[in-house]
């Protein structure tokens, strides 16, 4: 039992922390969000240079052979800076789908490109009616010679507009919610028949609706085993959820820090508002929520690698439940304690609250994971 990060991990964290606090302040972030693309190629290149983009991939695939704990470390710092670059969609979710489902050749070709910052990915998993259920797949992939033809509509694909390649879940057999019959395909975002409607998200990121109309792909586009993608999808999603939990913990920590600082400096009735006991006790609850969230994010970052899928699901869902609840409470209380300033877009506080609320709406909210937790028990 040991909660100490290795020296390499501490260095990674420190350098990222330093970079974000120096280069990724509130104004810099605002400018990045306002740009056409919605994130910064420069920042992305620097992430590549720092080794962030391949941190969890095998060295054989151009990565650094780190663990899920390294991903957690990175995501926590990105959360602390509410960084909008497509780390989650490209490296965490896209990357792990390829890592878990891809052939050796696919991994070697693609992951090293991701690690070098040359390839952006997006995972097109959700659909208009799927909500948070990975098995709800109505998009179809029909055999067509050696390849497949895809048709369907993928919803709220994070960073879908800027991705070079899309990892698409499609139904090769079975009914709309059947576990069997789902397959994964790698599709060029610019392939003929792919229509992308990109938009901002309320937390400062980008996403897209992507429609596939008779999109032809070759046999080499298949990622993993035909009809049997669901277990892999679930594993990758659990990894992604554990990363989101880590990100949320970073965001909570930063949001609490800025809120407690405000309580100490904001004066009303001739004294700092942090001297009012009603606010003090609520601040303590915010802090406890952060600590409890941190605990389960840590646990999830380790147990997400468990060989026992029930243990993995249980712990990951527990973490997502905790950060969903805690993120809501901390986000709402932080805004409230900032008073009028809390609802101004010019203060960082509200942006943290937005990100925390949207993390709850990504890959399963509290209710979704409560049901999943109960069934994995």
């Amino acid at each position, binding site marked *: 039992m040991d909660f100490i990060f290795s020296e390499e991990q501490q260095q990674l964290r420190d350098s990222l922390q330093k970079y974000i606090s120096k280069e990724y302040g509130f104004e810099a972030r605002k400018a990045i969000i306002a740009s056409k693309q919605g994130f910064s190629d420069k920042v992305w290149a620097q992430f590549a240079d720092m080794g962030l983009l391949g941190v969890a991939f095998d060295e054989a695939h151009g990565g650094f052979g780190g663990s899920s704990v390294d991903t957690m470390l990175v995501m926590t710092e990105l959360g602390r800076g509410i960084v909008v670059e497509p780390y989650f969609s490209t490296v965490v979710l896209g990357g792990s789908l390829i890592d878990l489902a891809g052939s050796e050749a696919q991994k070697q070709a693609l992951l090293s490109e991701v690690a070098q910052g040359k390839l952006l990915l997006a995972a097109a998993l959700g659909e208009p009616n799927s909500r948070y259920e990975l098995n709800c797949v109505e998009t179809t992939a029909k055999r067509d010679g050696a390849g497949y033809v895809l048709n369907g509509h993928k919803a709220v694909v994070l960073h879908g507009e800027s991705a070079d390649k899309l990892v698409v879940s499609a139904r090769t057999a079975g009914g*709309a919610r059947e576990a069997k019959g789902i397959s994964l395909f790698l599709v060029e975002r610019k392939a003929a028949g792919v229509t992308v409607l990109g938009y901002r998200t309320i937390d400062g990121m980008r996403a897209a609706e992507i429609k596939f109309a008779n999109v032809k792909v070759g046999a080499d586009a298949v990622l993993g085993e035909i009809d049997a993608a669901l277990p892999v999808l679930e594993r990758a999603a659990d990894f992604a959820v554990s990363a989101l939990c880590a990100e949320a913990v970073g965001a909570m920590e930063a949001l609490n820090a800025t809120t407690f600082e405000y309580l100490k400096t904001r004066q*009303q009735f001739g004294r700092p508002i942090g001297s009012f006991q009603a606010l003090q006790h609520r601040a303590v609850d915010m802090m406890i929520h952060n600590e409890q969230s941190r605990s389960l994010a840590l646990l999830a970052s380790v147990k997400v690698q468990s060989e026992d899928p029930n243990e993995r699901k249980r712990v990951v869902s527990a973490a997502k439940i905790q950060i969903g609840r805690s993120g809501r409470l901390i986000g709402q209380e932080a805004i*409230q304690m900032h008073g009028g300033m809390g609802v101004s877009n010019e203060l960082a506080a509200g942006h943290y609250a937005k990100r925390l609320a949207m993390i709850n709406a990504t890959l399963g909210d509290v209710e979704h994971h409560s049901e999943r937790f109960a069934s994995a028990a």
Partner: protein
Amino acid sequence: MDLNYTKEEQAFRDEVRSFVRDNLPKDIADKVLHHKRLAKDDWVRWQKILYKQGWVAPNWPKEYGGCAWTPIQQHIFDEECGYAGAPRVMPFGLVMVAPVIQHFGSQWQKEYYLPRILSSEDWWAQGYSEPGSGSDLASLKTKAVRQGDHYIVDGQKTWTTLGQYADMIFCLVRTDSTVKKQEGISFLLIDMKSPGITVRPIITLDEEHEVNEVFFDNVKVPVQNLVGEEGKGWTYAKFLLGHERTGIARVGESKRELEQLKDIASKQLRNGKPLIEDPRFRDRVTAVEVELMALEITLLRVLSARSKPGPEVSILKIKGTDIQQALTELTMEAMGPYALPFRPEARDGNWHGEPVGPEYAAPAAAVYFNYRKTSIYGGSNEIQRNIISQMVLGL
């Protein structure tokens, strides 16, 4: 005890309902019901319609053009308007400054301003909060110095709702800094076109422009625009705050939002079944619905009391905003991943682009974040709890 409305009240409700049905412009109601952005003209148009009907100032005495409605009638009116999707009547002129002018204003102020307020000719704004004075309002710093027939006003107000449209602003200003802080405050009516006034937007979390900072730099205000006596502004301010606060329960609007939420949750699917049938989600809706049912009766109890509403109206503010916020939270969560897309352009009444997800999803998260304001403005819910604790519980 009789919890049914009287026949007269029922008839009144029918009258209001059919009037609203026949006269509320559909384009305006559509905007309200779908959380689209309202233009200045939308508010003014509706207020002028009410003015024509004689219903724009129910809280005013009859002599000034009010309705002399009972509190219950007023509630019925608020409820019907809220439920039907009428825009809120802007309170700053009609509900806030007008009673102050009626009680404490000069004859000239009454004759000049009241008709213009009634007819929505002037759009009023409120100049209370300052950057350093939120909950501790009496610590305000904007000062007004008498120079001959004018006051010279310098300072800053903030959180001025829709101040960008305002023709007039009523302000609390400090005219004497040598006395106790509450005693050096005066109440001024200021023309927004006066030289030296700058309005700067504050963009809120939903990226809307709803509130403003208002800067006063050497602004000349005629002495005739002082309400009542110099140094008595705090008294008038308290009078104003206590005057009409039962409307803050917003029962009609919350009923409307609850109904929309249920409608949305019956369309949204979860594992192929309507979300509303999921007991986890359903129970959260039920919890709010029960609180809202209770709040309506709590409100009616306050309105039916023979005495003037006292500090217990703070309950209505706390519970009313709790419920409003809970409804926006549930509505946002009902969307699932479609809570993420943020397209402010889709909130424009004239926008006809390609929607993302179901149409009702577009404003959900933005409205949730916008509504965080409700527990902050109008005396934060912490201040309301202080009031109840001291004035009702005697702690």
